């Protein structure tokens, strides 16, 4: 198993993955927070991203769908916040990052998907004493470590 002690290690290892690897591990990150989204469209997007042999047409459709869900789920200005709904927005953003071309995202798709997934957990933990984002971070370290090992 690859030891990941902190986010610097995490980011470095993610940046070492090729495009397909980034997308595959991003799909796992999104999948881990999928229960926080009640939107079936995101479930479908995640299924497409997770396929190693996904066609360009399917990925393009997944990108459009993830973008639409992101726009549909943001909290409008002045509307009362609902952190559970907002978790769904960040899950959609994670899925969108996972399928966005690598050169359009600082840090790459997998890192951005990881950050948005943690934000989704943060939303769920607001108002509780639980370190939900910290737990998600540890889960992501484990996911990445297992993914790298599976590639060896």
């Amino acid at each position, binding site marked *: 198993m690859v030891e990941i002690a902190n986010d610097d290690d995490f980011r470095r290892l993610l940046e070492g993955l090729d495009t397909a690897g980034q997308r595959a591990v991003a799909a796992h990150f999104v999948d881990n927070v999928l229960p926080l989204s009640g939107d079936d469209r995101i479930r479908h997007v995640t299924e497409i991203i997770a396929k190693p042999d996904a066609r360009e047409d399917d990925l393009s459709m997944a990108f459009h769908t993830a973008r639409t869900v992101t726009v549909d789920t943001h*909290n409008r200005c002045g509307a009362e916040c609902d952190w559970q709904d907002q978790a769904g927005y960040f899950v959609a953003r994670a899925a969108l990052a996972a399928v966005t071309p690598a050169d359009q995202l600082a840090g790459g798709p997998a890192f951005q998907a990881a950050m948005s997934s943690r934000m989704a957990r943060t939303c769920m933990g*607001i*108002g509780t004493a639980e370190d939900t984002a910290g737990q998600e971070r540890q889960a992501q370290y484990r996911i990445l470590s297992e993914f790298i090992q599976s590639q060896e």
Partner: protein
Amino acid sequence: MSGASLERGIHAFKEAIDAPVASFFSSCVRCGLCAHACLFFTETEDPKYTPIHKLEPLRRVWQQEYTFWGRLASALGLSKPVTDEDLADWETLVYDSCTMCGRCSMICPVGNDIAYMIRKMREGMAVAGHAPPGLIGATQRAVTIGSPMGVKLPALQAQIRQVEEETGMTIPVDVEGADYMLLLSSMEIMNFPEFIGALAKIFDQADVSWTISSNAFEATNSGIQIGVSEIAAELVQRIVDAVEKLKVKYVISPECGHAYMAIRWEGPNLIGKPYSFKVVHVLELLDELREQGRLKLSSKESQRLTYHDPCQIARRGGVVQQPRNLLNMVADDFAEMPETGTMNWCCGAGGGVSSNERADELRLTVFKRKKAQLDAVRPDAIVSACSNCRIHLEDGLEKYAMEIPVLSLTETIAEHLAEKDKSGE
């Protein structure tokens, strides 16, 4: 807003008719030029959206109460008093089809500030009980919770914790004696918390001493949007109190249009005294840091970028050149849309329109104007400096199937920032 009645509304109208409003009404030559400056008219061609027409109940009160012939006509029973039905009819014109963008004020040949008059008219509409439910809810939450979206301190703290983990930096909270106090809009805290991290990176590189106040972090002011000066003043005073407690020299207004207008331009008038500190928009500060050579980039954006001027920051706030200086620093290919800067077209969602679900269809209809501006430039990405504009631009682009990402200017700069030189040289 409790105890709303027509009587209170008319009374508020009379109070709202100050010297500028009275002179504006008496100066209007009914030329109709303001119609062609308003995207609600240009994109629908419905004459009811002519800006000066949106003020008709207020104009009638002015005429009947404050002009010789109007008072005579009233005394003789020849004029029709403003009724509750009139105000109900005008509610959508005043709140749904006006973003208080101020473009009509720029175009008026006799210099009438129509946006100012709409702001004044909303004072009477709100106390008469003719404000949209979405805005009433936002205003009540702003007063009771401190945020129009109900964002409480624990939520901000949770977002800060995650930003700290992501960036490895400490976000300063309640640091007494810092130079700058950063305000945030609830939109940033909820939808774009990465803005906090972006600014932390920039401030770290530029050695800016800053803090966030746990007592007053909210920048927006729904009291102004709905038109209740008492509430607007209370919200400004909370910020003033926090500044005095922390003894900071400057307040930073974030990437939010109306927050800047509220805290910088309306604030001192609302509380009735000058500030003991200065208010700067985040772009003003970033441009100052650029000018001083304190922003060092490691790369530049190669995509073709264009800039959407938030109305309250550019047209009503005067921050026009600073974003352009910053964009020319960070981008190789910055292209201006036609009609920008002080004459930019509103995105269609300012002035409380985005809080008002009833106005959704209309705000997306009038987005056609922004679409036309974007079609002329065909950018790879749109940059802006207002979270509300950003969300609405995304909505509009989705509606018209335009695949253009929308970026924050602050975040774009942070993305291209060089690593800080820790050598001390």
